[in-house]
């Protein structure tokens, strides 16, 4: 079941024209894991924007979370398609920043398949 899912996922990521960007969520308290690095590399190769949320930022002090952000950002210097921010669902911090990124991605026009109401 899992293999089948992974296949679907790969197919989705590679073939889906509607995909405007990838939001990658990862716990601010941990360094990037293999899966995270895989997604970052994949998006870079596919030329797809990736926005990383360092989640559960409320679990760290302000200083510690800023340090984590700086450290993670340093790892992304070779990935111009990547952006990163702190996020906390608990305190709702980081939502406006995320919304701004999504707005930008959503404003990229959709593949021109569904516009049938010609003028």
């Amino acid at each position, binding site marked *: 079941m899992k293999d089948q899912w992974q296949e679907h996922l790969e197919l989705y990521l590679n073939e889906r024209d509607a995909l405007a960007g990838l939001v990658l969520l990862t716990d601010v308290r941990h360094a990037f894991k293999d899966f995270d690095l895989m997604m970052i590399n994949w998006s870079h190769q596919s030329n797809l924007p990736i926005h990383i949320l360092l989640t559960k930022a409320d679990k760290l002090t302000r200083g510690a979370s800023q340090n984590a952000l700086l450290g993670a950002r340093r790892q992304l210097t070779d990935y111009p398609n990547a952006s990163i921010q702190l996020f906390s669902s608990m305190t709702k911090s980081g939502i406006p920043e995320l919304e701004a990124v999504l707005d*930008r991605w959503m*404003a990229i026009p959709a593949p021109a398949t*569904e516009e049938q109401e010609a003028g």
Partner: protein
Amino acid sequence: MFSECLKFDRSAVANAVQMPCEGRPYWLNEQFSTSERARIITQDFALLYELERCHRQIVRLSCLSASHACDLPRLTVSSAPMNYKTASFTTSSVGLEDCPADSLREVAFAGRSNAGKSSAINALTNQNPLPAPARPRAERSLSIFSESGRRAIWLICRAMATPRCP
């Protein structure tokens, strides 16, 4: 006329990146036929990606637009941002074949198990909360959210469980 308009100097466009401009993206103008629209969209799409690579620090750059009076297409700040609070759960699917048509704009939320994907969606949409799964590692479906007015679909990849340590 509009094909001329698209033969612009890329550095000039790059300089125009920061010029805010009101109004709808020009490809939505009714006077374009569907095929013209498709062509314009394809060309601008490529351009937008190129500009994003050059100007990734301009995070609020959101749509490419041109005014009729001017030969120079302008990149604008979207005048009508999405209202994510009105997004609601649409469907879930176990495979690609159940996914909605590949036509709208989508964003995939990806992350390992327990990275906070569902919580982030809940915080963003502020409604229809996703129940916390009783067995997070058993999740194998896509959940799709849409804000129908703006034709956007969000998609959560929920099957990123890493193998347990032995």
